[in-house]
């Protein structure tokens, strides 16, 4: 058996991910059965004798099925549309002390093996030996390189800006792992442990991924939690220092579980930057630079 597939009990509640390509090609092209030149001036029956007919038919037929995966693939989560929410992340590095509680909460929440961390906390030392920390997870790029290179369109972008993996479709080519500049993707090289999913019972959807052998997994922004309950992403809830924020660009609000900020103000005043801006991935994860300074602003971060 190749991977014990859990897709068999997909309930009717499965959200419409808009997997039908938005941008279908035009009607399948003329298969060239009509003469294309003097050389082809022959009857249809003759041509049918030509052995490549199947090849052409396949090529022509494929045109009707393909999608150019550059555009946002509409994925509607229970009626919420892209006009209502555009999720993003903010990490306030001023507050991060490298306790890695976000990492362990994420591991626990998604039932991940130790080597598969959807979130990592990097650390560096400066000349004086002082340590700097930076949690990195899927940056939810709006020009996601991983989405472009997936040969089977298994990586999807919801119209609320969340990048997800359809693990029932994933071919396991790992092209996305090669493409991701943030090393945010992990592969289930062996049979993964049963996924600890909430709220149970939950369907196996990109929002509620049940890790399958031979497929790729990554941070889902706990997108499964947001539409159905008011729980925050596990890393946001776990951080005792309020470094992690989940935000919505449309309503201009971000929270870290302790306080609420006006997102646009918070980003501007904190001189927010994005990771590897130069790659043009247009990530939806903002970093407020800093390293354990007292946090500015009256209601921001931890007192």
């Amino acid at each position, binding site marked *: 058996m190749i991977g014990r597939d859990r897709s068999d009990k997909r309930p009717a509640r499965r959200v419409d991910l808009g997997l039908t390509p938005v941008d279908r090609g035009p009607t399948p092209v003329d298969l060239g059965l009509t003469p294309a030149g003097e050389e082809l001036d022959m009857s249809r029956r003759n041509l049918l004798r030509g052995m490549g007919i199947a*090849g052409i038919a396949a090529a022509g037929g494929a045109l009707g099925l*393909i999608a150019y995966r550059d555009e946002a693939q509409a994925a509607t989560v229970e009626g919420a549309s892209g006009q209502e929410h555009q999720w993003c992340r903010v990490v306030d590095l001023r507050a991060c002390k490298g306790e890695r509680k976000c990492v362990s909460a994420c591991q626990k929440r998604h039932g991940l093996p130790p080597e598969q961390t959807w979130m990592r906390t990097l650390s560096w030392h400066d000349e004086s030996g002082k340590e700097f920390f930076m949690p990195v997870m899927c940056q939810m790029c709006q020009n996601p390189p991983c989405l472009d290179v997936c040969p089977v369109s298994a990586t999807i972008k919801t119209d609320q800006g969340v990048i997800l993996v359809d693990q029932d479709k994933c071919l396991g080519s*790992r092209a996305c792992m090669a493409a991701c500049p943030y090393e945010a993707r992990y592969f289930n090289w062996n049979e993964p442990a049963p996924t600890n999913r909430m709220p149970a019972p939950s369907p196996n959807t990109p929002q509620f991924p049940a890790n399958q052998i*031979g497929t790729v997994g990554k941070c889902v922004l706990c997108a499964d939690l947001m539409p159905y309950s008011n729980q925050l992403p596990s890393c946001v809830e776990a951080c005792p220092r309020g470094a992690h924020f989940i935000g919505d660009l449309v309503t*201009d609000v971000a929270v870290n579980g302790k306080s*609420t900020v006006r997102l646009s103000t918070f980003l501007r005043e904190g001189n927010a930057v*994005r990771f590897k801006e130069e790659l043009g991935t247009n990530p939806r994860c903002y970093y407020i630079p800093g390293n354990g300074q007292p946090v500015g602003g009256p209601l921001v971060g931890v007192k």
Partner: protein
Amino acid sequence: MSSVLESTMVANEQPDVVEAAMRPFRKASKKFWLAIALLTVLVVIGIAAWIYQLRQGMGVAGYTDRSFWAIYIADVVAIIGVSYGGAVVSAILLLTGASWRAPLVRLSEGMALVTVIVGAAFIIPHLGRPDRLLGMVTSANVASPVFWDMIAIGTYAFATFVFFLLPLVPDTATLLGSHPDELGRGRRFLFRFVSRGWVGTTHQRQVLHSAMIIVAIVIIPLAVSVHSVLAWAFALVSRPGWHESIWAPYFVIAALYSGVALVILVTAGFRRGYHLEAFITKKHFVRLGYIMVALGAVYVYLTFADLLPSAYVGESGPTQIINGMLVGGVAVWFWLFLVAGTILPIVLIALPWTRQISGIVIASILVVIAMWIKRLIMVIETSGYDRLTNSFGELFRFTWVSVAVTLGGIAAIPLLLMLLFRLVPLLSIAEVQEATEKTDEPVAEPSSPGKASHGHAAGAAGAVILLLVTIGVIGVAKAQPAYAAPNPAVPTAVATQATVAVTAVEKGPENTLTATVTLAGKPVEGALVNFYESTTMFAPGNNLVPLGAVETDVTGIAKVTYVAAVTGPRTISATYFPTVLGDPVTGTANLDVTEAVSQYVPTPPRALAEAGKTLVFGLFGLVIIVFIILIAQVVRVRRACRPVANGSFEQAPTT
């Protein structure tokens, strides 16, 4: 055996090529079956290892997140790569009219066909879920280089098949005529099917020759496209070491270099096995050896050109990749490749006393192995480089599974070739006869009248493919952070007891919030009032979003103007801390916003997104044109073979 003797044999004694071509169809030796059995065992072990890998997961093949691409993709690149060598020996030499290619073409074309199939098959163990392979068609993503790998390999494999098939038409007819009884039933049926109607008239020969020229013209850009797209599967990601503009031509040259080496090996093997010394002489090996050495020199040059710019600039990622090659984790393999895979073969072929068949064969073995090693280190080193920590993780390690699968695939190549050439003649009888005739007396060459025009059309198609493929690159996006908004806030306030009265008025998109702070009926001046609006985002109850802090004026009034992001009712509150540690005093008001302006700006489309989409449709059109051209050649030859009443031959449609 001296080469002088052999070439005189070709010229004067005219060995019977038909007799030689029949050799593989006769009873095979024990050694032959022993080799078949041994290779079959290797293939079966490989398949068994792959099934084990399917059950256990790719972890057993040594794959980890820091070697997500490794041995199997290197096998794909290396084995499809050698296929190109078969195509080049045949196609380029055909187009340049090099008649010495005659005894080599069938072997090299067969090698091209077998290796492209085996190479493409290595994609299957590379995939985590090969059971979903059909998704490449049913939910294809045409922006993916992997999708175009499939298209390019499929088109090239079809062209290789046509290129292999067409010259079989006269050869099978010849054998059916000369040895009808020795062929056996299966081969007789196959040969009749292939050669139906071929009688060898001038017209038929002209049509076949012209068709072969066109297929040869088409197959060269196709092979270039296969290796370019394989390279782009790597180069279209921003990883150091892979994201190199030179990679497409680099792969093409690597393919040619290793491919010519394998042509030499296959030729040497069958020459020895079926005693074809009379047809394939030292001259052939030397010429192939020269081609190989020239390509090897180009490959060394490209390797240098690939490494120098990154090494010179010193950017962290590429520098570490190069450092890893020169002195780091894969240095042993890299220097082994450089010395054993390029310098040694060049020396072996350059020196007259090693420029013997044995020397050239040894050089070819070195090249084939070293080029596989080079592909492997190109893959595993960059894959092992963590772009977040800027350091190498643990590089790929061989396991018995991945080694067994790879060996099984490699064993499949000679196995399939040996079986293939028990099925079809291993020498191109027509071409060898033609070449022999030409050396004796210059006969009118059946150069096709349609050659120029067809060649032009196909050449133009190839040029357009290359041009379009070159243009197609992914766009760069503009960043657009979602900043903007109101005032900063400075804390601290002083007072004793107070009340706060709030009003909120909407005027257009702007909402004016006014808080009046009074203490015992008198306005408080200089009180810092924090304004909030409520939101239901992220919380079951109301969350308060700060809108700014303003000090009251002489009249005790603090005013804030803000633009709401969303419409709808909300509670506005103004909070005032009479003392630093005391309880806050809060006043609230309801505000129903009807006009809101969100700070959110949708991501602009990427700069070259439209060009990419246009390119896709252009490419699909080209692929279809290529298929039409290839099928048309098969149909032409078939039509020329159609028997016509009253003995006259049907005229080809005039162009």
